[in-house]
């Protein structure tokens, strides 16, 4: 059957006395777009912060392609195959678009920084390869015409796409997208959906956090729903849309009057 590229088992996360995630199980299969949805504060971004190593879980296991990520330093987790974008764009604003992407591509090349400082041939070759890869990814994402512009000067939508290109430069096993459609108009959302499909077809599995339900239901192969730190449902878009617990969580039931 399909391989699980990202697998989160029995994840428990506590901030002080508050349990942010309670025994959550998630996985992303090879070649699929999985979505993680839930009301605000359900713990979606916390999942991203945990799997990328920013916080340490109280309990549970995180596997990337079968290898445990627990205790690994965040930059190693990134190199091992989990790359993310941010809900609030965090590009390197004073670097050009292509430099943003090349920075991530460089993280994977094995030549050391001493060689880089003294310009030894191997480093130069690797750096050139990173640059070429960065240009290629910009082309893939449709930003090659902006390669030499400063990231901070790009239009908003291009900045979002540039973040995706930068994350792809890490050759991630799973690409984590944190609300990529935030601030997009309907037309841009459609284009984004196309792009995410294209990314999957290129061989990257995708885990998507998104509030825009039409986008989620349109492109996802599988949807998991979080509410108050617990997974309350998982299934195909159609199953999720008809799940009573999910509907209650989103619309609120009578005793849940907040």
């Amino acid at each position: 059957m399909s391989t699980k590229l990202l697998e989160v088992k029995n994840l428990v996360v506590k901030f002080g006395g508050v349990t942010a995630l309670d025994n959550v199980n998630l996985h992303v299969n090879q070649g699929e777009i999985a979505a993680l949805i839930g009301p605000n504060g359900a713990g979606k971004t916390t999942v991203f912060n945990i799997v990328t190593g920013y916080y340490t879980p109280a309990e549970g296991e995180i596997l990337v392609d079968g290898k445990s990520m627990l205790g690994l330093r965040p930059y190693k987790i990134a190199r091992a195959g989990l790359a993310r974008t941010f809900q609030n764009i965090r590009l390197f604003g004073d670097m050009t678009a292509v430099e943003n992407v090349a920075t991530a591509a460089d993280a994977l090349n094995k030549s050391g920084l001493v060689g880089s400082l003294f310009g030894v041939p191997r480093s130069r070759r690797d750096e050139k390869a990173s640059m070429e890869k960065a240009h290629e990814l910009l082309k893939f994402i449709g930003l090659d015409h902006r390669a030499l512009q400063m990231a901070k000067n790009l239009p908003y939508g291009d900045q979002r796409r540039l973040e995706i290109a930068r994350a792809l430069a890490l050759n991630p096993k799973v690409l984590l997208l944190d609300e990529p459609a935030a601030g997009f108009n309907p037309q841009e959302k459609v284009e984004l959906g196309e792009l995410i499909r294209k990314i999957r077809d290129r061989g990257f599995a995708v885990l998507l956090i998104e509030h825009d339900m039409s986008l989620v239901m349109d492109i996802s192969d599988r949807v998991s729903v979080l509410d108050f730190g617990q997974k309350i449902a998982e299934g195909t878009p159609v199953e999720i849309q008809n799940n009573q617990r999910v509907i209650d969580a989103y619309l609120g039931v009578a005793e849940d009057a907040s």
Partner: protein
Amino acid sequence: MDFSILVSDFWALTIDGLVVGAIIALVSLGYTLVYGVLRLINFAHSEIFMIGTMTCYWVVQRFGFTGYEDPLPLWKFAGLFLLFGFAAAVVSGVAAVILEIVAYRRLRVLGASRLSSLISAIGASFFLVEVFQKISGAKNLDFPRLISKDTLFEFQNAYITQDKLLVIVGAAVIFYILNRVIHHTKLGLGIRAVSQDERASILMGVNVNRIISYTFLLGGVLAGFGSAFYMVFYETTKANVGFLIGISAFTAAVLGGIGNVKGALYGSFALGLFQQYTSAVLGYNWKDVVTFVILVFVLLVKPTGLFGEALQKARV
């Protein structure tokens, strides 16, 4: 005030300003690069420069030059210069890396406040000065005249000598290489990425601790080359030689906008020229006073400097 010297010797002062500016710049870059990645003023950086000057002195001593011989022929001088220049670069670079590990890394790992690191920096600076006072006997160490300082050619009352030409051309080569490193290498992209968003760079696979170490290395290497030029030009050093040049370099970094490489370069040359022009008008004793006044003035009036960010509200 007497402006007659400024007018009559304008080009001579300009040449000297460029020479001094180039030396200041090589030190200034260390402040600005480290500030970029750590938001920390590495006040011990002036001592990294001092260690470079000491290295030059010792290397030259070791080769038996005491200052009583005639200046060397050009090719011999070039060989010797490369030798003590690279020795100083290596020793200063390594010293800077050790400084980071000993004085700052633990504090950073423990999440100490920036103030703690600043105090640690000042402590490390005092420590190094005192140690080298002991070693050098607290006296001026005079560097032999290795290269003839006769005038090569004259230009509008400015006497161009070999040593000044060496500093300007040598520094220009180093700045060119540095620009290449900053813009086209893994190290340069890493340094800039960490300077702009440390967390995002971690999540893009950048090993931040490594980048920080190499930033110190790069700053130290630049200061080491700067110290070699300094020794050829000024021909003397002592344990606290770093203080005034350190203040000049720090002022230049703030003037250009700390954290900004281009700013440090412009700031350094501006400061070098300004020091020369004002000392022609006010007298040479006023040179350092002018530097301090500029530092205070920039911090009060335009804390962002020419290109950079405000020291007072450094990003957290």
